[in-house]
């Protein structure tokens, strides 16, 4: 787990412990520490299931229901995706997760020169409705929930999902999709952005506003502190930035005249379990409380169930090493423990081989078994929020809370998250933290077993890159060309013009996108219209 800094004396006794969030940990905690931070049970914790939900959003926690596990897997072609989906459903899985290749994430057709060498590499290539028809053939879209890992063009993929469902006879009111749809974190961390910040946030808003009105079972946004943390942010920054991103999206919808109570219950978060065990537990407990407070105090949200911090707390990949890779199995178990002690409702673990290859089925299964052992054998379901009341944990939770609030205030002072990302402030902060972390590893102040300590007899795994099969791209491009030949091209042109005028007028693009998808307009064509109208983002210089 270790990411804290340990300052030692020559005899290896620990002189100082400094967490990534900057908190210095004392050797011993007692009742006076709770007094010092003004700890108050009702105000700071409340019972499980009660405001401010520090102890969890359900009164009985894992007693009433164990966590949901959602392992992430990757696939190549729409046909393979379809087979994998059917297999997973036959195994009892109730949720699917679609990984898209990079050209699709960037809104490029498979025959675009910029897509060369990338078609089908890290996920499924999607050019038109035809690919969704293949991928979702024979699947009960009214019973299965589908996660769509797509951001810059989440509008296009959600429209396409509705189009395919309706084509197969499922009414749009019954389908349940979760597009990731979090563009601000792409600009901070994952890099699959296209348009400048303001129109990009407007598209996020279109997706949410349309879902509120037309797709009652869809969760139109999943805010990812996870990737911000993977990019180097501290646990405090992870939560502060994720909440400020959420606030930026809420503001966008409030500006359109929507009431927060009508949509915030459909927001979910994807957060990272990587780091010092105690810091992680305190982070999640503080986060549940701060999210509820943020919604109630900043946005006037009244409905109790709308105040819940929902989402996936998943074991982060950046903790895993390609040196002595079996150690990652043990690390995964401790990340799972941290998630359970934090009261995660949904969880997943990166597989032990992920540091050097795309996970094998065996490694993915081992991750799942690890999580099952935690729930079934170790005793994590016995009682809710078992660390509550600990002098140390409660003191730490309060300190994390204060630091998250300070970091949120910094973003507010800069004019909010849209501004803070547009100017590069957040990117600079995150890069600086990543650099500090790396320096800590290289100096040995941060210990990584098998990497900078206990490296004897080291077995470092050579990284394995998946062989890239050119025939996938050829097949995909042939199918795309056939679609372009067979469809009514005049109708497509007319609809793309309508899309352009809708985007220029600043109206919600979703309804006309659904029509474009039905007419087999391609992802590249629809995104091309947005590129024309909105332009492309120029990253601010951060050095």
């Amino acid at each position, binding site marked *: 787990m270790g990411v804290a800094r340990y300052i030692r004396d020559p005899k290896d006794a620990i002189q100082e412990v400094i967490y990534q969030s900057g908190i210095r940990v004392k050797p011993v905690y007692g009742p006076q520490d709770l007094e010092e931070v003004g700890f108050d049970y009702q105000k700071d914790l409340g019972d499980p299931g009660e405001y401010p939900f520090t102890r969890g959003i359900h009164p009985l926690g894992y007693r009433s229901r164990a966590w949901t596990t959602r392992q992430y897997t990757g696939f190549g072609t729409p046909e393979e995706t379809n087979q994998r989906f059917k297999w997973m459903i036959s195994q009892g899985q109730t949720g699917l997760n679609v990984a898209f290749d*990079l050209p699709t994430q960037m809104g*490029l057709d498979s025959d675009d020169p910029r897509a060369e060498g990338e078609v089908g590499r890290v996920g499924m290539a999607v050019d038109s409705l035809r690919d969704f028809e293949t991928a979702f053939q024979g699947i009960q879209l009214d019973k299965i929930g589908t996660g769509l890992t797509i951001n810059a063009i989440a509008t296009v993929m959600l429209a396409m999902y509705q189009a395919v469902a309706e084509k197969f006879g499922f009414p749009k009111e019954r389908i349940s999709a979760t597009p990731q749809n979090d563009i601000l974190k*792409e600009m901070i961390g994952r890099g699959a952005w296209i348009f400048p910040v303001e129109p990009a946030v407007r598209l996020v808003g279109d997706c949410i506003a349309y879902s509120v009105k037309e797709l009652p079972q869809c969760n139109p946004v999943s805010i990812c502190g996870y990737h911000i943390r993977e990019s180097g942010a501290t646990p405090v920054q992870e939560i502060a930035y994720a909440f400020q991103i959420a606030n930026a999206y809420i503001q966008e919808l409030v500006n359109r005249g929507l009431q927060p109570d009508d949509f915030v219950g459909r927001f979910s978060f994807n957060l990272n379990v990587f780091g010092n065990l105690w810091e992680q537990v305190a982070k999640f407990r503080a986060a549940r409380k701060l999210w509820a407070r943020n919604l109630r105090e900043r946005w006037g949200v009244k409905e109790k169930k709308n105040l819940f911090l929902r989402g996936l707390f998943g074991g982060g990949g950046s903790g895993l090493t390609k040196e002595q890779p079996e150690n990652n199995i043990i690390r995964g178990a401790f990340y799972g423990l941290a998630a359970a002690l934090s009261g995660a409702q949904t969880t997943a673990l990166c597989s032990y081989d992920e540091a050097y290859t795309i996970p094998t089925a065996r490694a993915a299964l081992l991750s799942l078994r690890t999580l099952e052992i935690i729930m079934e054998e170790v005793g994590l379901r016995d009682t809710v929020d078992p660390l509550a009341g600990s002098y140390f944990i409660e003191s730490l939770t309060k300190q994390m809370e204060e630091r998250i609030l300070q970091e949120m205030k910094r973003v507010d002072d800069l004019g909010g998250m849209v501004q803070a990302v547009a100017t590069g402030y957040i990117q600079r902060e995150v890069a600086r933290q990543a*650099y500090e972390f790396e320096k800590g590893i*290289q100096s040995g102040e941060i210990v990584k077993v098998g*990497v900078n300590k206990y490296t004897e007899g080291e077995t470092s795994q*050579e*990284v394995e*890159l998946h062989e890239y099969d050119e025939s996938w791209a050829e097949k995909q491009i042939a199918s795309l060309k056939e679609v372009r030949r067979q469809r009514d091209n005049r109708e497509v042109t007319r609809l793309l013009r309508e899309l352009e005028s809708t985007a220029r007028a600043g109206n919600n693009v979703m309804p006309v996108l659904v029509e474009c998808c039905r007419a087999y307009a391609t992802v590249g064509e629809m995104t091309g219209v947005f590129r024309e109208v909105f332009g492309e983002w120029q990253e601010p210089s951060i*050095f």
Partner: protein
Amino acid sequence: MERKTKVLIAKPGLDGHDRGAKVVALALRDAGMEVVYTGLHQSVEQILRAAMQESVDVIGLSIMSGAHVPICRKLMERLKQEGMEEVEVVVGGVIPKKDIPVLSQMGVKGVYPGGTPFKEIIEGIQRLVAARREA
């Protein structure tokens, strides 16, 4: 006084994982070099133009997508065509060991897989530039 070593850190292709690129950029800057970062999603042509405009000594490519061999081949060819052979090229990212000789043969002067100590990268670049200036 001798001119500062100038390095272009570049991210070719569609992949958006730039933690490594940014961290190395900061380490080189702390070592006294002048660093320019291209940002994401760059084509080889864009990288070439940036290297030309900024008259850099070294181009450092950060590649995690597995496409390091074709990208390097293209960049080395274009540098030659433009008569920019004096610009040294190094590569970091996800690079299997078996590909290192392939890259060296093309004229790539340093390969730094993820986890390489900063010291090794900094000294490697300093040596390259010193040798070039003496020549």
